[in-house]
């Protein structure tokens, strides 16, 4: 499809602005010459109809959860309830300026207050900040809280963060942004943190560990008690990457497992849409120890009045211009209220059930899970046997596209060769799972019968396989008007 900029034609008018009801003052008149833009920016010039068609047709070249199965591991691509969108769109929150006097923003503050409470109850923590805009932002926040804690307690030597090799890339990247050195811990053959390596890495410089539990392998950490105890003995803290919280709601709470701080991904566990790459929301919950350092403002409730509290003397400060991705929080609260405690427990049950079911059936049709354990809400296949025959995980993935199925996460976690990380989520029906299994079985047969079908996939999408290498060797970052 042409770019919207290529469809532009000089002089066409789009949607009109409100009528100007005061005397027109041009920039030329209002400002000194050197301040005034010399040329109009070359933005598109099109009638409304053409813009609507362009983006409608572009949308038809995209794939979302509303179209079909999207077992993208670690991303919890569950159904995004439409009631979330309705409440966000219709209740007038959109018109609320963030600096509105508090008494005119009681509704918004109530939403934040109640969401914080609910997240704390679900996670077993004391307080939470809703400010972080995404998971990685939550990680950075959590790690800064650990840093503030150690600083406050005079432990400025603590400059090492332990990160398992199975961790998501954002974990080490966030810790580095918070000023830590990273020590990477290997995994053992059951997918746990290698406990010997952990013991070896432990010393007084260690500020903490960042764990995902269940891990990115979809496995619960079996040595969590020892890890928690030995870190806490040294006043090192445990960070919980909550990307996988969908596995354990109502069954286990990170706060009860020995963690000190965690982030949530509201855009994963709590059903808010991913928006093709955001906006998300990554609230951070903490136990008693870290409460004094929470970002300002905190949301409080006193005498029937909600308010923003900036008077938190040891706070690390604000994380965003305002209070985070409010409209995402709103959706998450709707979701939590729709489910209640029973519903959220059922979410985790069916998420784990679906993952185990798919794992078992894929094993039966010739795929190899990377670890010989029951999984939680997701699992990782090791496709190196297929790769030897010429069908890399990439090829299997592109072939899945031909069947109207979104591929799983590829090549992550890094420690599994030819990794294919499958997270079905709880909102998928038995038929959807069975269809996926059948398709995977067929693809496995195609590896022997007709390998080209895989290596040349996808066949019936709007484009054929795209050339990534060219894009990084000769990247083109923008359209230049007049270039055609």
């Amino acid at each position: 499809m042409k770019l919207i900029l290529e469809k532009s034609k000089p002089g066409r008018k789009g949607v009109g602005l409100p009528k100007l009801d005061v005397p027109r003052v041009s920039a030329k008149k209002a400002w000194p010459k050197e301040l005034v833009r010399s040329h109009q920016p070359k933005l598109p010039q099109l009638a409304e109809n053409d813009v609507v068609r362009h983006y409608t047709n572009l949308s038809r070249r995209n794939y979302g959860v509303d179209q079909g199965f999207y077992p993208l591991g670690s991303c919890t691509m569950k159904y995004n309830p439409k009631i979330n969108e309705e409440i966000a769109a219709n209740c007038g929150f959109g018109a609320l300026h963030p600096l509105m006097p508090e008494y005119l923003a009681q509704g918004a503050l109530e939403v934040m207050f109640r969401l914080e409470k609910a997240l704390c109850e679900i996670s077993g923590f004391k307080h939470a900040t809703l400010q972080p805009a995404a998971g990685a932002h939550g990680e950075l926040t959590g790690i800064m809280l650990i840093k503030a804690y150690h600083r406050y307690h005079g432990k400025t030597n603590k400059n090492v963060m332990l990160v398992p090799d199975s961790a998501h890339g954002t974990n080490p990247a966030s810790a580095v942004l918070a000023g830590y050195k990273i020590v990477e811990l290997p995994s053992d053959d059951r997918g746990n943190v290698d406990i010997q390596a952990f013991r070896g890495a432990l010393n007084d410089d260690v500020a903490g560990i960042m764990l995902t539990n269940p891990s990115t392998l979809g496995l619960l950490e079996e040595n969590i008690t020892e890890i928690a105890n030995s870190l806490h003995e040294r006043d090192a803290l445990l960070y919980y990457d909550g990307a996988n919280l969908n596995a354990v709601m109502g069954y286990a709470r990170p706060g009860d497992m020995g963690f000190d701080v965690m982030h949530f991904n509201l855009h994963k566990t709590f059903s808010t849409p991913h928006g093709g790459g955001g906006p998300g929301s990554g609230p951070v919950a903490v136990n008693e120890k870290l409460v004094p350092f929470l970002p300002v403002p905190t949301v409080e409730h006193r005498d029937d009045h909600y308010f923003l509290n900036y008077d938190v003397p040891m706070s690390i400060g604000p994380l965003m211009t305002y209070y985070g991705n409010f409209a995402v929080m709103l959706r998450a609260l709707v979701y939590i209220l729709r489910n209640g405690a029973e519903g959220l427990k059922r979410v985790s049950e069916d998420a784990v059930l679906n993952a185990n079911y798919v794992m078992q059936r894929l094993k039966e049709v010739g795929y190899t899970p990377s670890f010989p354990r029951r999984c939680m809400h997701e699992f990782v296949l090791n496709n190196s046997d297929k790769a030897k025959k010429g069908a890399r995980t990439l090829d299997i993935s592109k072939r899945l596209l031909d069947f109207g199925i979104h591929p799983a996460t590829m090549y992550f976690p890094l420690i599994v060769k030819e990794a294919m990380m499958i997270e079905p989520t709880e909102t998928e029906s038995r038929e959807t799972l069975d269809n996926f299994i059948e398709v995977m079985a067929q693809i496995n047969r195609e590896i022997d019968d007709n390998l080209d079908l895989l290596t040349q996939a996808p066949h019936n999408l709007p484009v054929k396989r795209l050339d990534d290498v060219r894009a990084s060797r000769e990247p083109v970052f923008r359209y230049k008007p007049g270039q055609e």
Partner: protein
Amino acid sequence: MTYTSHTDAERREMLETIGLEKIEDLFADIPKKMRASALELDGPLSETEVRREFARIADGNCDMTCSLFLGAGSYHHFIPAALSHLVMRSEFYTAYTPYQAEASQGMLQSIYEYQSMMCELTGMDVSNASMYDGATALYEAAIMAMRCARKRTRIIVDECINPLYRNVLATYAGNLDLELVHVPAKDGHTDVEAIAATLDDKTAAVLVSNPNFFGVVQDFSELAGKVHEYKALLVMSVNPVALGALKTPGEMGADIVTGEAQPFRSPMFFGGPYIGFMTTREKYVRKMPGRIISETVDEDGERGFVMTLQTREQHIRREKATSNICTNQGLLSLTVAVYLSLIGRDGFTALAEQNISKAAYAKKALTKVEGVSLKWKSPAFNEFVLSLPQDAEKVIENLTAEEKIVGGLPLKRYYEGMDNDVLVCVTEMNTREQIDEYAAALGRLI
């Protein structure tokens, strides 16, 4: 249950396939003593009950008939009706980050279009796909500048920058080997000479904003020259709506341009989600944080779009990445592209002009009130500082309570010695009638 599908029978069959007896067996790996007891949460509520509950909650908010003169980083602008219809196409909003390019051409092309438009507006070569918001984008620009100007650790921060942004800079800066040097404003604008005098060999970047927090627009060409003499970078945080009238940051010599593109989509949503943007010069692209989309071709040679230069990013580079950002504000990049396409080139120019015109009218109307004056006469965009003859917080409070006019942001909380000053914002959404009523009400209250 609410959104799950399985019947009891199906669950039993599936458990059988796995070789388990009951659902709880799936959670056997959780040590007994860590098992959670039943959660105490409100709900479950039906859709109807949820609607009632949120209608009640929303009643606690301003009823929207308020007339709004509040800006300070979040702006009330016109949103075309077609916008949300397009953005809410579920193929877009229920998709993940476009990892599978062939199934994500819609999103990838839209973001490429967004990048192209942002480059065009700012006068730069490259844009990333988005940052969290205006403040975090500015911080990311600061540390990007440190990567560009290696081994330098000093960042000069103009105090005309939105204090909310500066507070955010302070939060993050404390964790790294990085010194923020603040240079005070001078009569509501950037003190170029003072900044020049502060420059040194350790300086990685100078951070300025345009229009600045007080609404003032300024030509930074001269400053850029000085900054470049010191081989430092000029980072400019802009309100992109002003770029319909303002000389581009590129022409002024900026090296990195950031800002808040919320004004391009507008629901103010109590502060978020908004969208930080960042553009820069091509030579710096490999130091840039965040996702970047590039044109490429498919096996048949047809044009297509993919994410590129991913070796900068955390999922490949981990602790050596240019940023930890992963999920960004993707849907809002699309929104910006749709918005700019809908209002179009001439609409965009007219928009800036309308904001200037409305602000001009408001300045005149409001300063006719006895005792009220403009703090500074500098050229400004859609905000300006008004000096009242008494404590501004009190006046603004009464104005809201008695007249349903949210008259602006009192500056006492943000700058010393500005107790009587208020930052007023006027956009194309403020009618002449609202402005006249504001002036009349102010007259009554002072």
